[in-house]
């Protein structure tokens, strides 16, 4: 574009806009940075200053404490298990259902599509769903954190739309070469859908790691609590994280409670922060695919 005259007002606006957005950008992650800093703090640091970004002395006591407790370590294990298995279940159910639904010639396709869309509009609600889970004897099992959310209707429709847009010629060619329906899905469709599948793998995985509601509803047994529930117990209900301090090293200095809380928050967020760079590359595109109607 050719250079044009910019009024003083426009320049003022630009400067203002860049500064304001810069502040908003920093504000988005600042609370988390404070928590990370606080998690490395010592008792002295905490009493001296309430909030800081760079601790004068870095102490790993809070993390050492967390990883020496059975309860937190076990809950991390539960969360990891549910995230890995749950995401695999999500992908299997979503892909196998989306693929047939992408075939316009499939008999009953519209009925199924309407059945799915209706669930986005109306649901049985908390109690009837709870009773179904109970009848299936899933209460207090980790399957209760996996199966009831096996498919997100919204994601299903996006994946279906994506499959639908794939060039039909490739499928026809493969079919002429004697490729079976399953072979088609496995060898042609899935490899072509890698970006979309990557997006949903990460979305589903993040959903499982962050899940609190299902565990609150369906899991009473503290030994099966995922990390998010444990987090609430420790930070909000201020319950002691360990229980068995006696078994620990006598030279061990218990870190300040505030640091422990912050360290648990960090641990609860860390996996998200690790996958975020990969996530970020894909999701804008993935979300956009959803706006295609059909």
């Amino acid at each position: 574009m050719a250079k044009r005259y910019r009024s003083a007002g426009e320049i003022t606006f630009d400067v203002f806009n860049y500064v304001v957005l810069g502040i908003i950008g920093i504000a988005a992650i600042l609370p988390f940075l404070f928590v990370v800093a606080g998690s490395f703090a010592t008792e002295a640091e905490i009493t001296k200053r309430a909030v800081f970004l760079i601790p004068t002395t870095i102490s790993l006591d809070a993390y050492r404490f967390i990883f020496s407790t059975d309860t937190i370590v076990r809950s991390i294990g539960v969360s990891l298990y549910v995230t890995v298995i749950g995401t695999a279940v999500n992908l299997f159910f979503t892909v196998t259902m989306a693929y047939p639904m992408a075939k316009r010639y499939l008999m009953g396709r519209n009925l199924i599509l309407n059945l799915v869309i209706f669930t986005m509009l109306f649901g049985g609600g908390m109690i009837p769903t709870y009773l179904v889970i109970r009848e299936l004897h899933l209460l207090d099992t980790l399957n209760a954190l996996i199966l009831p959310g096996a498919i997100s209707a919204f994601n299903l429709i996006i994946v279906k739309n994506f499959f639908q847009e794939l060039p039909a010629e490739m499928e026809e060619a493969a079919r002429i070469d004697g490729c079976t329906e399953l072979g088609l899905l496995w060898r042609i469709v899935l490899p072509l859908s890698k970006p979309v599948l990557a997006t949903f793998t990460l979305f589903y995985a993040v959903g499982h790691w962050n899940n609190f509601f299902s565990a609150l509803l369906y899991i009473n047994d503290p030994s099966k609590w995922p990390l998010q529930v444990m987090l609430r117990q420790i930070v909000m209900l201020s319950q002691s994280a360990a229980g068995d301090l006696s078994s620990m090293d006598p030279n061990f200095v218990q870190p300040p409670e505030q640091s422990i809380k912050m360290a648990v928050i960090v641990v609860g967020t860390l996996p998200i922060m690790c996958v975020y760079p990969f996530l970020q590359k894909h999701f804008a595109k993935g979300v956009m695919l959803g706006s295609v109607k059909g």
Partner: protein
Amino acid sequence: MKQGAAMGAAEISAGTSFRRSRREQRFRRLKRDKWLYILLSPGLLYFLLFKYVPMWGVLLAFKDYQPFLGFWKSGWVGLEHFRTFFQNPDFFMLLRNTLVLSLYNLVFFFPAPIILALLLNEIRLSFYKRTIQTLIYVPHFISMVIVASISYVFLTTQGGAVNEFLFAATGRKIDFLASPDWFRPMIILQTIWKECGWGTIIFLAALAGVDVEQYEAAVVDGASRWRQTWHITLPAIRSTIVILLILRMGTILDNGFEQIYLMMNALNREVAEVFDTYVYALGITQGAFSYSTAVGLFKSVIGVVLVLGTNWLAKKSGESGLY
């Protein structure tokens, strides 16, 4: 599509045995696509079991559920649970809290991503724009428990950073977490922090679709940046705004169970308790299944009516709407 045409011809040539032929056709199609149906079955089973069986379960709202009798043998009581609920003073508290929170959300949160997207759209430096976007999307991926935990850690009167600052500055502390006055602002601030950046995605996409020539023409006509925003940019994203507004209307009665449940306590309950937390408290923790199903059903039905109603209004006013 050739298949469709061939089938049509087959149907016509069948003449009198039209019906039988159709049935045969169907059977042949079922057989041809058997693998597709096999693939479809796990997903279908999921929807029936975890979505449609619970829908059937809302009949509990009209029954007097007795655990030892089970779903089928418990007696019918008609609308009694609804009557009890509407006569209960809790009903007005829940309705008020729910609506006020939704209103706050609509007024303070809903425009925020639009404004943020408009500001971002004015940034010409693409590196700067992408950096800001990367930063503001982060909170969306953080769990509500973490958001609530961070709020607790900062706002507590026992060494929380915000209160330490307040104390240093004014000599007083404010118990944000246990004060009814602070509950709503706290909830809205959390929502804005968590979802505002993420909410810009859809508007930025809509903005990216605006024809650049329109701006160039406007500049030639001497339109200021404000005029361009008002006459080109905003009309361009109007339909996106309307669609999101319709979707929001549907969720006006669910204010996000997790967030409110996590931030609620005995001291702020009078402004915090909403339909969802009430259903949880009565149904899951106290076992009043039928009554709380009725409360949940009331909420769902109003939600559906609101979506359909807003959609109808949107169509009436010339927007494309959702359906």
